[in-house]
């Protein structure tokens, strides 16, 4: 039997849910449902939708590539070094995205520390390109991978790894064949959260990659641009974002944090 919650707390929860849900319901209430198919099939929207889909998927992949090694390293550290590394790795999650975008400009912009070298050496310019969108998205999405996978690793019983090692498996083999399969749900959760975060990214993208329709104008940027010009189109695109994000979060259920 589940222990009962105090009545006051249940009431507070009810009010809190209402507060959170009210803006979303108001959004739904404003959606021009009958015009929806037409609004979502315009070129600007279709371009933004397609760009958003592939850049956010690419960003989630990059976030996994960067986030997994950090998470593994973190899971074997403790004390101040661990807190410091964790803080650095998860900073983009709490930082205003515009600040993140500015930081990316200072690093990868045409005048940036790394950007200038890239430009001179390979003629590679990242700002105002779809690749720039992927970088901005990956930057803000990586912390979600780090946090979910680290907590998955910490919840893992070390005896499995010790047993594998005792049976002669190398650390690499142990990691690939024993650890990764056991934290599968954390990997999936991290990937989906990173993807959902990348899909909704706005501030870092507009700061670092600009707002070029068909090239760097992702769905959130298109919503922003359309809010002034074509409110119905903005609402239609918002609906897509809300729907996709809800599907991701509902399908994750309790995978967000690993099962105890």
């Amino acid at each position: 039997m589940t222990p009962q919650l105090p009545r006051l707390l249940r009431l507070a929860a009810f009010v809190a849910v209402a507060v959170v849900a009210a803006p979303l319901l108001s959004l739904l209430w404003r959606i021009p449902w009958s015009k929806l198919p037409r609004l979502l099939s315009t070129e600007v929207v279709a371009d933004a939708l397609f760009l958003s889909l592939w850049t956010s998927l690419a960003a989630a992949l990059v976030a996994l590539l960067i986030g997994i090694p950090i998470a593994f390293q973190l899971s074997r550290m403790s004390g101040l070094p661990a807190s410091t590394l964790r803080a650095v790795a998860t900073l983009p999650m709490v930082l205003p995205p515009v600040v993140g975008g500015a930081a990316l400009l200072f690093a990868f912009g045409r005048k940036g520390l790394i950007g200038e070298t890239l430009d001179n050496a390979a003629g590679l310019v990242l700002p105002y390109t779809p690749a720039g969108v992927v970088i901005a998205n990956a930057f803000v999405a990586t912390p979600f991978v780090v946090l979910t996978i680290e907590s998955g690793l910490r919840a893992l019983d070390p005896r499995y790894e010790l047993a594998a090692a005792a049976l002669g498996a190398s650390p690499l083999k142990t990691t690939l064949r024993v650890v990764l399969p056991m934290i599968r749900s954390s990997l999936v959760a991290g990937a989906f959260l990173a993807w959902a975060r990348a899909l909704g990214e706005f501030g870092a993208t507009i700061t670092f990659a600009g707002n070029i329709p068909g090239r760097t104008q992702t769905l959130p940027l298109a919503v922003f641009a359309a809010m002034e010009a074509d409110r119905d189109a903005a609402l239609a695109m918002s609906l897509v974002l809300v729907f996709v994000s809800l599907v991701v979060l509902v399908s994750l259920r309790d995978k967000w944090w690993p099962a105890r």
Partner: protein
Amino acid sequence: MRVLLVTATVLTSVFLNGCGSGSHSLRVFVASSLTEVAQHLAEEYETRYPNTDVELNIAGSGVLVMQMQEGAEADVVILASNSHMDQLREIGLVLESKPIAQNSLAVIVSPQLAEGINSIDDLRQRDLQIAVCVKSSPCGALAFAYASSVGLNLSSATRESNVKAVLAKVERDEVDVGIVYMSDVRSSRAQLGHLETTGADQYSTSYPLAVTADTKKTQKAQDFAALFTDEAGQSILTRFGFQLP
């Protein structure tokens, strides 16, 4: 518990003061191209009427219109085009407006490329990153009209939410070329290049000012509006590169 109560009280009072326009403040919505002018005149107003604080809400005209359509309260509103003011007039948020200034377009080049680019032909021929305002903003509407008249392709231009964002990107060499206002050229401290004989100055916009229909501070709002047409206001407007109507 006591600490909690005190905190709650403080927070509540901060919240209420912050949100409701207090009786000692005047809320002015200003188009971003007027940033410097509005800041100067707000200071001037506070010197003349020390009991009133001027709260400036500075954003692109499109954003300001949207905020007011959604119920944001303003006492005075100054936009960068008549068509944006018309949107407010149509729904009765303002009754009448008067022009306080004029501004025209300018094509600017980043400090790094300032020497190398001298004509619209250079822009058409080279693969340059251009920044303009979003089409729905006054400066964007003008920029797109101008670009099509001179055959300049803006399809790969980045569209910024307001003119100050365009200016900042050009100033810091993040883009090569920007289409902004003459007033921005005047107020910028960077070593920008300015393409002078491009015909961009033929594209100009008017700045209408209105005291809102439902302001409770009509007198204060009118006092503030008067600043723009008296000597102080006019000298500041011309100093920052605006033309008088």
